[in-house]
């Protein structure tokens, strides 16, 4: 689904049908990474490198669903999700989210004292400009999984001094 709002006829029919987003469904503009990712894809973030402590995360199961082009850097919807099975001893324990461009690199941390019924969390992030963000998920057995996503953040067309 194109994010280009200048395709007005598609918008008109959307508005007419009054599409209601039920049950917290995100408008998923990009799901799993388009190409295979490796550790070399991770953005350079000191906090991320420190947390990895030399360990190499796996790619492929963790995904970041976030628009390619943000409407406004103040609030960009994001879903962090993990696919696959979690046999006993490999439950999802924590997720950390990192930004290379924000003044504070660790954007958020989620811990699951009880295994979540679904391995996913939705939130809205604040991005200080176009950048590649990264998420690291840790399982109960110490396994690390990573995902990255590139987001374009543009400035407002008009300055707002109010």
């Amino acid at each position, binding site marked *: 689904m194109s994010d280009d709002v200048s395709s007005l006829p598609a918008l008109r029919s959307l508005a007419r049908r009054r599409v209601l*987003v039920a049950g917290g469904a995100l408008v998923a503009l990009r799901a799993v990474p388009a190409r295979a990712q490796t550790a070399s894809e991770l953005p350079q973030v000191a906090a991320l490198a420190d947390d990895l402590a030399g360990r190499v995360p796996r790619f492929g199961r963790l995904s970041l669903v976030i628009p390619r082009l943000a409407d406004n850097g103040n609030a960009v919807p994001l879903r962090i999700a993990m696919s696959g099975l979690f046999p006993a001893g490999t439950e999802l324990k924590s997720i950390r989210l990192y930004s290379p461009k924000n003044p504070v690199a660790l954007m958020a941390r989620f811990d699951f004292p009880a295994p979540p019924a679904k391995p996913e969390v939705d939130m809205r992030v604040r991005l200080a400009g176009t950048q590649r963000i990264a998420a690291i998920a840790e399982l109960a057995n110490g396994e690390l999984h990573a995902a990255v996503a590139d987001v374009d953040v543009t400035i407002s067309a008009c300055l707002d001094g109010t």
Partner: protein
Amino acid sequence: MTPLDVARAAGAAVLGIALAAGAAWAAPRSGIDYAGADVRAIQSDDAQNPGMLWVDRGRALWSDGPRPCASCHGDAASSMKGVAARHPAWSTAARRVVDLEDRINACRVERQQLPAFARESEDLNALTAFVATQSRGMPVAVDVTGLAQPAFERARDFYVARRGQMNLACASCHVDNAGKRLLAETISEGHGNGYPAYRLEWQAVGSLQRRLRACLFGIRASLPPEGADVLTELELYLAWRASGLTVEAPGVRR
């Protein structure tokens, strides 16, 4: 006629004389139609719409205090239904056009014997959002005839007159260039039916007057003070332009 009058007349002629004659463009389209998919998703889901936090606060304020709004108006869902849809409106008591914020403050001062809320205060935005939400889904339908007509005409003239360092009129963008790109954004028709709205830029709910002042700032024009008549009258004109669009409060805008 002064040179300024001539310029204004010429401006009106160039910038949307159809407006002056009484709206001959295709059916208006809400700002939400011009918004990106994410903004539309957030607005359409009350669980995600941050504006609902202001509506919730307004609901609490409605029943708060020794002489709350509820003591006269009871259940807002019935007593306030349609009120936002027909505002701004001429007020006989105030002898001018008033918007919803003015109405709420008038009640607060005259009936509740409380100090007026400051414009753009969180409480006033919350109460206005709560009252406006009672008209959600109803068509905007304001009366621009009779005693309101001079205000309507003043605002219509304002809308087509160029101003600011950038020498733009409201109509320059919102009539002549609606649908076109401005940097990464698409210019909307500039309707106010989504207000009070949670603007991502503000990270808070704000009034339509705040949005108008933001626009004037954007074209580097001088800003009228909050609550100024020129802004209230502009709100009336915009509501007329938006006739037929539904009240979307609390809207979500970029």
